[in-house]
């Protein structure tokens, strides 16, 4: 049994666990506010709130970023109270969260390569580099990377390698979204859903950019962790 679950440390571990649980909830709310409007975790589009304050939905990014900041503020005391447990729990949560998000994001793209290729073309990134011909093949391969590296992050012990790949995918998303905003292309991110015939929504590019800038940090942290399976994280370290 690892030290943090021994009787004398149990109280601290429970407090640390509760703090991390609340932090996880805030991160989920933050991601929902930024990326998934109209989910049960999104507060800014609740009818009772919109009745009182009709413009509340406009502040989803502010609420989302605020929720993530609160989550970060809760993580620090959790680590201070019981570092051994908090680090293991954070690694587990980050791997499942980021890996799961990538798996989820890939499904729609794998199911409809044509729609995703159309969306990628709207970025006009390859055409600017005179690499138009790459667009379709890139659109076919990229979602597969998302799916398998996301899966590897969760089920394989190769966290370092999968986080390294996912880190560079985040870098590419940030470059693409910054490019779209810089050139005022006004397009949707296409990260989690493909909207038929509607590839334009400037606000979504902003929210996606903010989300990616937030999520790249835990990915970078994972890229420097030791390779262990999810179960291996919870085993006693060998001396």
């Amino acid at each position, binding site marked *: 049994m690892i030290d943090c679950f021994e009787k004398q440390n149990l109280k601290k571990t429970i407090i640390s666990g509760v703090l991390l649980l609340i932090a996880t909830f805030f991160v989920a709310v933050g991601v929902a506010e930024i990326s998934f409007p109209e989910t049960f975790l999104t507060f800014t589009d609740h009818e009772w709130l919109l009745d009182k304050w009709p413009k509340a939905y406009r502040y989803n990014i502010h609420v989302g970023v605020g929720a993530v900041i609160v989550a970060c503020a809760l993580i620090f005391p959790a680590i201070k109270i019981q570092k051994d447990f908090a680090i293991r729990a954070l690694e587990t949560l980050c791997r499942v969260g980021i890996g799961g998000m990538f798996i989820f994001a890939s499904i729609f793209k794998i*199911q409809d390569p044509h729609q995703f*290729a*159309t969306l990628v073309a709207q970025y006009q990134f390859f055409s600017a580099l005179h690499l138009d011909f790459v*667009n379709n*093949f890139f659109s*076919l391969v990229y979602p*597969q990377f998302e799916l398998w590296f996301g899966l590897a992050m969760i089920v394989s012990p190769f966290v370092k390698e999968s986080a390294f790949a996912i880190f560079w995918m985040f870098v590419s998303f940030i470059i693409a979204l910054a490019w779209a905003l810089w050139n005022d*292309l006004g397009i949707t991110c296409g990260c989690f859903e493909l909207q038929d015939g509607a590839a334009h929504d400037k606000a979504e590019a902003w929210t996606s950019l903010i989300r990616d800038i937030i999520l790249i940090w835990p990915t970078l942290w994972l890229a420097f962790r030791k390779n262990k399976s999810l179960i291996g994280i919870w085993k006693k370290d060998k001396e």
Partner: protein
Amino acid sequence: MKEFIQKIKTDALAYLKSLNWIVLLGIAAFCIVLAIINNIRVEDSKSVDWIGSQEILEKPADIL
């Protein structure tokens, strides 16, 4: 400053050497194979040409 840059270079190289490149490139190759299979698997309306791009849609006037 020069020493700092040298240290970053050394650390980055050491990190890259510590990665399991067989796993990384293996997954990448596997993904390429699956991408090809997937493009054949999906119905014609959803598949794309291997080489090429898609048309660029007109930006709506009422965009935010």
